[in-house]
């Protein structure tokens, strides 16, 4: 029997998710034994026309990482959706927008201005900005459209499953692959990770005080967390209570609070809102000035509460940027 074929593709991403595969080292041979890799731009040279030549259903599953920001990415993922039986959003960016999704906190004009004019390493005296259409020596050149917003994969195509994490830990990937090979698939739309929040498995949960009160937010940049205490109790904002478990407490074990890359639990409408409500209810301040000082001690709240999930959240983008663009 022919080995099932799999495709890997990347959109707006950092390449870290590819690393998960590369990190397998010689174990990759086991993967290759079980499946044929039909597409893997990071490692195998292939052109769009090769994929266009596939018959629908030729490839069993496409693992797509990265958020969608460019028209070209949209075309690619639509193509893969057409040709592959299953599409799995691989990693935080495809799942929820991820770090690239933080671009939704600003707007296209600002991004271009920074990238092509303001950045101290840019010398662009003529103020040239990339154009979607350019004619060079009689040839019409085309660049993809840079969208107004970053989108999670499921806003562009239908997604069957989600593998969360930045990047997804390999044991979850293995579970997913195993389930596909054995045909034991969970209900469509499932996030392949446990349903409880990270505190459930976090060893530090036992150190929580009876009554948690938050009087200031500390930063890991300027103070070192207690290696045993619950981060929240120690004054560091930890996304763990609002984030799915299953990552193996990678950050916690590195003495860093959870940043929320696994995304919300199934019942949470919006992880940032949920944690914000929880934190706000535990903040303690005697006066309005104290309350303001407490709020101010959290540097970059939007980027903290929505570090990995702004595009997939109820907010989707910061309101200012929308106003700026309309």
């Amino acid at each position, binding site marked *: 029997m022919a080995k099932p074929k799999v495709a890997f593709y990347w959109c707006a991403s950092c390449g870290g998710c590819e690393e998960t595969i590369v990190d397998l080292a010689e174990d990759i041979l086991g993967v290759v034994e079980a499946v044929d890799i039909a597409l893997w731009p990071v490692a195998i040279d292939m052109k769009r026309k090769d994929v266009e030549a596939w018959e629908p259903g030729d490839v069993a599953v496409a693992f797509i990482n990265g958020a969608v920001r460019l028209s070209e990415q949209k075309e690619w993922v639509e193509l893969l959706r057409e040709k592959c039986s299953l599409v799995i959003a691989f990693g935080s960016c495809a799942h929820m927008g991820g770090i690239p999704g933080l671009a939704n906190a600003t707007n296209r004009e600002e991004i271009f201005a920074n990238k092509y004019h303001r950045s101290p390493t840019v010398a662009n005296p003529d103020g040239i900005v990339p154009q979607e259409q350019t004619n060079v020596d009689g040839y019409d050149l085309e660049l993809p459209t840079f969208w107004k917003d970053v989108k999670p994969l499921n806003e562009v195509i239908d997604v069957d499953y989600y593998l969360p994490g930045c990047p997804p830990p390999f044991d979850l990937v293995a579970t997913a692959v195993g389930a596909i090979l054995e045909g034991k698939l969970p209900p469509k739309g499932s996030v392949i990770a446990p349903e409880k929040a990270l505190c*459930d498995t976090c060893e530090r949960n036992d150190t929580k005080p009876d009554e948690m009160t938050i009087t200031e937010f500390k930063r890991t940049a300027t103070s070192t967390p207690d290696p045993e205490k619950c981060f929240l109790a120690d004054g560091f904002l930890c996304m763990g209570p609002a984030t799915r478990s299953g990552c193996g407490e990678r950050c916690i074990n590195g003495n860093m609070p959870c940043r929320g890359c696994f995304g919300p639990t199934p019942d949470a409408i919006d992880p940032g809102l949920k944690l914000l*409500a929880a934190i706000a*209810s535990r903040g303690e301040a005697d006066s309005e000035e104290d309350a303001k000082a407490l709020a101010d001690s959290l540097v970059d709240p939007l980027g903290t509460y929505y570090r990995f999930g702004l595009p997939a959240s109820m907010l989707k983008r910061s309101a200012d940027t929308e106003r700026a663009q309309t």
Partner: protein
Amino acid sequence: MISLTIDGQVVEVEDGSTVLQAARKLEIQIPTLCTHKALLPYGACRVCLVEIEGSRGSWLETSCTFPAQEGLVVNTTSDRVLRTRKIVLELMLARCPEVEVVKELAAEMGLEDTRFPKKGEDCILCGLCVRVCGEKMNAGAVHFVNRGTGKAVEPPYDRHSAVCMACGACEVVCPTGCVDLSKITTHQPRPIPSEFDEGLSSRGSIYVPFAQAVPNTPVIDKDTCIRLLNGDCGACQAFCEADAIDYDQEDTIEEVDVGAVIVATGFKLFDSKLINRYGYGKFDNVLSAMEFERISHASGPTLGKVIMKDGRSPQAVAILHCIGSRDENYHEHCSRVCCMYSLKFAHLVKEKTDAEVYNLYIDMRAFGKGYEEFYKRVLGEGVHFIRGKAADVTDVSETPEEKGKLIVVAEDTLLGVTRRLPVDMVILSGALTPSPDSADVGRVFSLGCSQGGFFLERHPKLAPVDSMSDGIFLAGACQGPKDIPDSVAQGAAAAAGALSLIDKGKVVIEPITAEIIEDRCAGCQLCIANCPYAAIEYDKEKNISVVTEELCKGCGTCVAGCPSGAAHQKNFEDEQIFSEIEGILTGSEV
């Protein structure tokens, strides 16, 4: 058992008893000076002599040491006994002519004076101190030295002893009060301050907290009891007739199931040390209100005499109102009772001394029934009322009259002048403030606090006795400063409220309550701290939080605050709200 005859009566006692014990069983009085229930018999004073009748005549023995024997015949009142005891006492009176116990016993024996030359000693050489120290305290710091007329009790070589723990047992046991601990020990005796007397008197390690304590039984202070600290002493057990002392008793935690709770944890008097300028803690005769309460009380450390630290009667007393209250730097509230208790103090000082009394007040709040009348009466007693808050209490004198006095500096706002009042005693009428542990108590009973920190009633007019939590009532000063009549009234109302709940036997619970989905809860416990009704508990074994439905008021705080969405409100789900919002928005589009 042994049976013997004393003064013609037959008595049965246990083997090993003394004749004295046998006589006491018959309630025959034999005087003693050196015997002590807790200590081994010693036979030093000889006043307990009795006559033993044997087959070949009779002889005298000290009944405290002589063992009871089968068939013994004892006479405690024979002429020979009385004559000899009289001589013993006469000799003792010669040695210690001024010692009360000796004088009393001698008088009982009909002795007015002694025919022997008087020596004027204090110590009757009973050896109680030596024995208590050796037998009970296991220290042996004092002993008899020399013999005959030179016999005395001393630490070795008459030097201050390092072995002596300064426990003071010798002082306590000495019948003549002649032990001076400072001559014995190298240690500093540390009296244990009486909490009830505001540290103005001392107490023992076993003590009844105060005269009206409920239950009215002594307690042992673990931190100072020598028995509990190092296994020695045990004197109180040996003294206790009822055999009620059990050193092995441990603190126990009793769990009581109740249907209603009345919180009546009261107030704490403002700590006047916080305001330096009034000199509390610095000057001997600057007193807190509570200290004055004790001093003026008949059962207090001075037996109700209003006297200064050095025992003199004050010639002038200043009573400073509103210390720590109505003061933006400390407590903004009016403590309500201070004006009235300050008037009471003024009245008491007037009644008990000839002193001039100055009350320095911001304004006089004689708010209750009969209170204005009392104010008038105190005015009539010649108390000086000065409208103005005291600014300072100092001992730096500016005039000869001020020398050696405490000077209260205040602006008299009626006369518009600054006054300096030289007085001997200053009483600081402190604010009633919330108990220091009120945050903990509030947490246990889910009580909120009003501004100022007193517990919050459900409604200031319509439900002043109820708290926000059903079945939890408030009474007394924990809810706000108030006097005794108001505290009692609120207490009675709270009791009635509690009874009416209990009487019903049923409680009506909310139809809409919260529920935590077991499979979704990560046990982060944030909801527990959030629940204003303490309705959520943490199940450590399952690592989840659980709502007690009977306590849940359905306020939804936990639902809103649950970061993982595990807490739900029955019949009030997010989906419902979203559908409603969608409905409204769809409508507006049309």
